[in-house]
């Protein structure tokens, strides 16, 4: 608010302005303290050789970046993260969409099924990961016992990343489904009636009416889930033991960050890893925004 404007204010306007500031202050302070300050501090730390307990940081320029960008494990972890996202996002969206279409019909028991599919969302992610870890266990796990197989679900580097991503898909289906259902309910029923009269069958209706009219919701889900998937941490952290051979082929970039920043106490290196991820997410988001103009229909 500039000086000039203030002069022109009446007493009543001023009072309103004060109150306005007072009401937004908690949010602004919260954002500054909890979001902006840590974010800026992270940028600063990525340029430092950090001391123990946040003391004695020395500025080293882009030395951390040179190390991070030349380390093979950085790119391997980034690739692991992308692979995870490539499974979690498409499958999470498609399965949720199909479920949503079925559960949007006026049938008996839909609310029961909706609740069941939404349940994973209510569970603590760490608890979910623990349960899946036991399901996957090679010796005593339920999966191998039921199918009489002897698959190393989470120790075989070739399939471990898929096993982890399946947990991710399972966890997000419920959430995506609820968003889809609300999107479906906004599509006017007349379209379907008109299509039926013209002789379009269910599949045709789904592809020509539901999919395009649902695209804003789909876009929102894809965008948020993509960012969520790229910052995945808890699944790998809970499921993969440190001595697991598949760890290097599954650990996400945030997991790598955790290892450096917290286990090894190298905050500067960890902060740099996070910066790399931020830049990557920015690029992905930019591309998504461009794609929005092309593929999303708003009525």
């Amino acid at each position, binding site marked *: 608010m500039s000086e000039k404007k203030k002069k022109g204010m009446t007493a009543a306007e001023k009072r309103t302005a004060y109150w306005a500031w007072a009401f937004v202050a908690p949010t602004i302070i919260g954002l500054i303290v909890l979001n902006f300050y840590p974010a800026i501090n992270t940028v600063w730390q990525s340029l430092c050789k950090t001391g123990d307990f946040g003391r004695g940081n020395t500025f080293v320029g882009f030395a951390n970046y040179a190390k991070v960008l030349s380390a093979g494990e950085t790119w391997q972890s980034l690739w692991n993260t992308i692979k995870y996202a490539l499974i979690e996002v498409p499958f999470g969206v498609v399965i949720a969409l199909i479920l949503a279409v079925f559960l949007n019909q006026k049938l008996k028991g839909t609310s029961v099924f909706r609740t069941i599919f939404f349940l994973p969302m209510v569970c603590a992610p760490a608890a979910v990961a623990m349960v899946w870890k036991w399901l996957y*266990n*090679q*010796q005593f796990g339920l999966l191998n016992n039921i199918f009489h197989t002897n698959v190393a679900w989470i120790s075989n580097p070739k399939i471990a990343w898929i096993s982890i991503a399946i947990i991710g898909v399972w966890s997000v289906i419920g959430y995506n489904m609820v968003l889809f259902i609300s999107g479906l309910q906004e599509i006017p029923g007349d379209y379907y009636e008109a299509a039926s009269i013209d002789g379009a069958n269910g599949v045709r209706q789904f592809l020509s009416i539901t999919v395009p009219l649902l695209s804003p919701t789909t876009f929102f889900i894809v965008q948020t889930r993509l960012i969520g998937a790229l910052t995945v941490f808890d699944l790998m*952290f809970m499921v993969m033991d440190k001595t697991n051979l598949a760890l290097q082929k599954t650990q996400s970039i945030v997991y790598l960050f955790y290892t450096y920043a917290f286990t090894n*106490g190298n905050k500067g290196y960890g902060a740099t890893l996070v910066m790399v991820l931020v830049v990557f*997410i920015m690029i992905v988001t930019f591309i998504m925004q461009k794609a929005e103009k092309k593929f999303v229909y708003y009525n």
Partner: protein
Amino acid sequence: MKKKVLSMLLASAMVLSLAACGGSGSAAPASDAGGTDAAAAEEAPAEEAAAEEAPAEEAAADTAAPASGGGSITINIWDSNQQPGLQQIVDEWSKESGVSAKIEVVDWDNYWTLLEAGASGGTMPDVFWMHSNTVQMYMENDILLKLNDYIDKDDTIDMSKYYEGIVNLYTRSDGNIYAIPKDHDTIALLYNKAIFDQYGVECPTDEWTWEDVYEAAAKITEASGGEVYGYAMNTSNNQDGWYNLVYDYGAQIINDTHDGTSIGSAEGKAGMEMVRKILTVAAPQSVVAETGTDSLFQSGKVAMITQGSWMINSFYTAENHADYYWALLPYADVNGNGTCDDGERYSAYNGLGWAASAATANPDACYSLISYLCSEEGQKKQAELGITMAGMEGVSDAFANAFDGMDVSAFVKIEDYRLFFRPYTRKTTVWEDALQQQGGFLDPWQNPEDPALMEQACDNAQKIIEDAIAAE
């Protein structure tokens, strides 16, 4: 209209997730990982201001006498096995001092994350355990309460009575003492007699060499057709596992001056070669990575493991504990004369220390509690209750009798042979973790049939440790 709402939703979601991701540098994962314990640790000492006004030296004036009644302090430990026994001793102290104290258990991995976050943010627990992995970093940064003045005025604490390696560990190079030894631990061989009987293999004795372990493990693994494994050891079983073999064969993980290693030497390779040989008849690495060696043993899938004295209680209270027996840690008959000579049997030992936060609001009460726990009486009590062996020398005999029906004398008997202090440097976890993973010993563990891999891993390990020390 809809477009506006959606794009606003999108924008805010993006800002939030981006900010959250950037911000995680200081907050998110720490609280994520800790779960409920995180909340407890953060609640710790509220009155920081008071602490700043009371420097340790001044407050030291009237120590030993229990802190004036009232108040409360928080204690953090990482071993839930020890919690009930320790709480019992702490409660007795509370009765005398009038200060209430509650022990919070945070599991090992998250303990250090939380403690470091607490030290950086100024909300540490008052009294907590220190460990050789990290204590140097804490001492150098004056995070811990200096105890010298308290100890000088306290008749019940005489630092010369404790194990020397542990005392040295918690004494800074300038002579400042930051923790008093709480306990010491040793390693022994644990076996399941039922499995040995079932396959008609002779049970381990105190005269066993690692070669005997190999032969027995081979017989059991073969006779069971892979149903039961004769032995199990993961790369993470270092202090209680392969470290001991390296020392038996004459090498050192970290040298006496803490600035080098001889794991890549001929002796180091000989030790790891023996490890490799045993691994060829042990549970495969993919198995132990998914189910811990302890769980495998307790579910009757493994006949022998090595374990530390801090784990006894977990086996003592297990379902089939009547089948479990402890034998002296095997030795390496390096000179091949058939007897155990000096330097052929080593056990790692380590000792935790009771330390207090330099920023505690109640340093007198903290020291009073530490003194109570580390005095001869407290140490004896700790051994009698079977919590751990004492950090004070010569008062652990009661420990051998603490477990009715289970003979744990192997842990006390090993002290007649050589002990080596758990290898540490300034940032132990950096190389310790690297050794456990790919590029370290994970590759030969994965493929123990190939001796060249183990030899290569020893050379890698040499480099990993040297590089880590250089970066400290």
